[in-house]
């Protein structure tokens, strides 16, 4: 894999377009620690997955973790 291809994959991961599992596999089964370091080298942020479409499930999880909220 070329550096440009690795850059592109890391950018896609940073945008949450691909999963960490796919990224790690395509970069040769690197560890998650290496993912953070490779993102850091390129000044890319960790992905912030959107809550859109998951609001109900996340509200349920929140209520389980913090029952006083309900």
């Amino acid at each position, binding site marked *: 894999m070329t550096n440009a291809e690795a850059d592109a994959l890391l950018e896609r991961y940073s945008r949450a377009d691909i999963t960490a599992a796919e990224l790690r596999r395509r970069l040769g089964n690197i560890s998650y620690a290496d*993912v*953070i370091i490779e993102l850091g080298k390129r000044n890319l942020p960790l992905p912030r997955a959107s809550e859109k479409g998951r609001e109900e499930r996340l509200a349920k999880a929140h209520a389980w973790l913090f029952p006083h*909220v309900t």
Partner: protein
Amino acid sequence: MSAPRVSLFVVDTGPLITLAAADSLDYLLFPNVPVVIPDAVFYEATRDVGKLGAQSVINWVKAHHAEIEIAVTEIYTIYDAARQVNPAVRMPHMGEQAAIEVIEEPGRLQGDDVAILLCEEAAITRRITINQPDSIVEMTTMDLLRALEREQRINSADAVFERAEKSGRSPSRIEKFGDHDPEIRDAVRETLASLQKGYGGRAER
């Protein structure tokens, strides 16, 4: 009606490494529910103690052994046995398979028990066969941090991620993890071996 019994299952290494890199592993304990880490996930997060976050994870588990369960799995036991014969053996997706094994373990989720699966991305539940799918919800690391932020238990979820990102950019920070205690690796091996000896019931707490 009483609240359901909630457990937090850490089903891949991502949350452990991200929070370790941000010096924020204790946030996993803030909801005050049992934390379960499958042995294979713990092993994958710590097998190279020179890696970012690994030693922090080990130290954190040791410091909070009463609150954190390292759950024994057959997949890791098989891997460990195979590794004795061939140290180069690889078992892809072992952590994920171990997580599924733990969650599907008979007696693990009973009655009104519910489980939060903490992972780097929400994709694992579709691979789990469970009688009560409504009793499981996946959260990413950021989802958990946002929940803590809403509860005013932490100041800023984004600030935690920014600390992890900064850690990945900092050569001195990364090098620091290479300066590990040489006894740690043996301690991890002994911990996992002692758990395997007791395999057959739930792991030690």
